[in-house]
């Protein structure tokens, strides 16, 4: 079996989303990964209690553990 790391969904909830996610089930799936300068950049889908479909970004270390969370700001901060 190949080396594989199952990511912990709760660890990947950005801090300022935790309130709207509550203590309910968190879906974290369909992740994209790309090499950063000294780490990995990671993007993924998230769905929490409110049912909204969000995208979050984070950085992973060389063991694919989360380093720093960065909210991919949704409606209000993206200019369309």
């Amino acid at each position, binding site marked *: 079996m190949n080396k594989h790391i199952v*990511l912990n969904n709760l660890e990947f909830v950005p801090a300022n989303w935790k309130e709207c996610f509550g203590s309910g089930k968190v879906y974290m799936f369909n992740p994209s990964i790309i090499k950063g300068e000294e780490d990995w950049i990671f993007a993924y889908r998230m769905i929490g209690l409110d049912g909204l479909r969000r995208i979050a970004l984070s950085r992973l270390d060389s063991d694919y553990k989360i380093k720093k969370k960065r909210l991919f*700001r949704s409606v209000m901060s993206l200019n*369309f």
Partner: protein
Amino acid sequence: MNNNSFSERAMSWFADPRLFRLAGRLFVYWNSGWHEPFNHQFIVELDESTLKPIGRAREIVLEGERRSIEKNWTFFGDGPFYAIYSIEPHCVMEFSFEGENEITFHPTVVVNWNNNGRSASYGDLRGGAIPQRLGNYYYNFCHSVYGVPGSYMYAPAVYRFEADYPFGPKDVSLKPLNLVNPFGFNDSPDRLNPAVTQVLYPCGAVFKDDKWIISYGVNDEYSIITEISESEVDAVLSPVSDSNVQDYKEVAVMKNTTRSVYVGFDFWGHGNIGDDLMIAGFQKALSSYQGVQFKTHIATSYFMESQKIRFPNISWYRELPDNSQDKAAGIHSTWVGPGATPFQLTCGDYVLKYWLEQLPFIKTFDRKCLVNVGAEQEIEPEKERFSLIANSFDKISTRDQHSADILTKMLGLPGSKVYSGSDLANIILADYVDKNRSSKKKFNLGVIIAGDTLSDEDIAGVKDFLVTRWRPTAFIAGDMREIERHECYIYKQMIADLGWWTKRKLVLSVPDYMNGDLRALLSPIDDCSTIISSRYHGLLIAAWMGCKVAAIARSSKIPPLAKELQIPVCYPPLTVRKLEAMQKEACVVSRNILIKAKAKALEAVRFGMD
């Protein structure tokens, strides 16, 4: 682009992000999911140090007709920039970041390729991760979906394509990639997508230190990152074969022009509903071209008024005019044979005679093509003359692989001149599938029996089957004319010696060919829950109408269609037992199969016309 241009849904639903770099700049791409009337896709540049967006999110759009749901475009190239629109066929678009608003993607090249049977087992490949270049190839980790609604399974896959134009696929994994799923199947009633029981969806790939790092989603709930050695990935790849290329750049010279289209063949409007569907599908395909106005000319010696009712935008004649006026006006003229079975001897040699008489006239046109046509194995005795005819055309697209094989293998056409598509009727039937359908079926069973190639014993077998049905059965005419061995004639013969009660149970159902619109032609079939048909278009209509369908192999064109639709088929001699089995085994055709057929039919028209 200001906020008011997009729906609330487009700006609040973020799905399936992909990170990618082009010319050293970092981007993220996403889509707005499944919604009416169509979804949106966006990309935005990211500041690599802060991961904050730089500038506006820009919508990405396709030049030309789009699908209602667009997703899984994957970007590559060092400039110019490209994106893969679809993997099977391998459609590549070109784009640039110029401007500030939406980004238009221009179709550049299509490579039709053979995945050595993978699709039959696991479905067609769809996009996934961003392609990664290794040497002279890009590795593309992707997926396909197979199974039935409620139990769909994702099959992760990888293929590699050439890094240079035309970006032809080189190798493909024939079996699903071995990606771990520690969670097993998800058949929970509250899963996000109740149609699917297992998702393994690669969305990211990086090559580092002789291994692939793959990120993938599991069951719409979890994320996994795995490492797979380069050798393990290369070991699952098998070479692909039989690819051919269609260059869209050549199409550009045809844009913003008027083209005259002279439709060949002489049987339009003679009473067969399949012919009307093919013309309707062809017209619909022409209307999908942007920037090109087509003026269509057709001749018929049959029921012209019926054609004018259904196709008022076509110029109808008793005899097709020549193209001298177009030549004088500098208008590009195309002679096209749309649909039907022009390579056949099943109905005698009249088709062969037609060709030999018409070829000098056909050769006067700027372009000569056949689109979405059929070819029958039975032409073998005249293959030399049919080869001469086939070689007179610039391009020929067929309605199935069986016909394409006859053209290349029996008639010796080069593969570059032939494209295997689907029947023209699929293009128009998709418009009617959800509109004005019969909600209450009048008949449990309908049969369509064209008897031109069936024996008297076969017809007797059908009769024995029908008279033993408990409930009333529709005897549907695919051709409304009362000529020997056609439905109306067979029906009269069949009921001649039946008792009154049996006669009442067997109901002749003939569409209003003379005055009806296209919908009226479909009604007799739409009125039935199950259809057993020996007619090609009877099967297609029934499939699109959502009927249970089974086929009678009246000629060599029927079994390939039955295979494509995944419906049962029986072969002469026809007996009660065989037909009872057909009624029992008849099945509803998957919408995915039909949508794929429509897409192939459109591609086939473009292959011939461009």
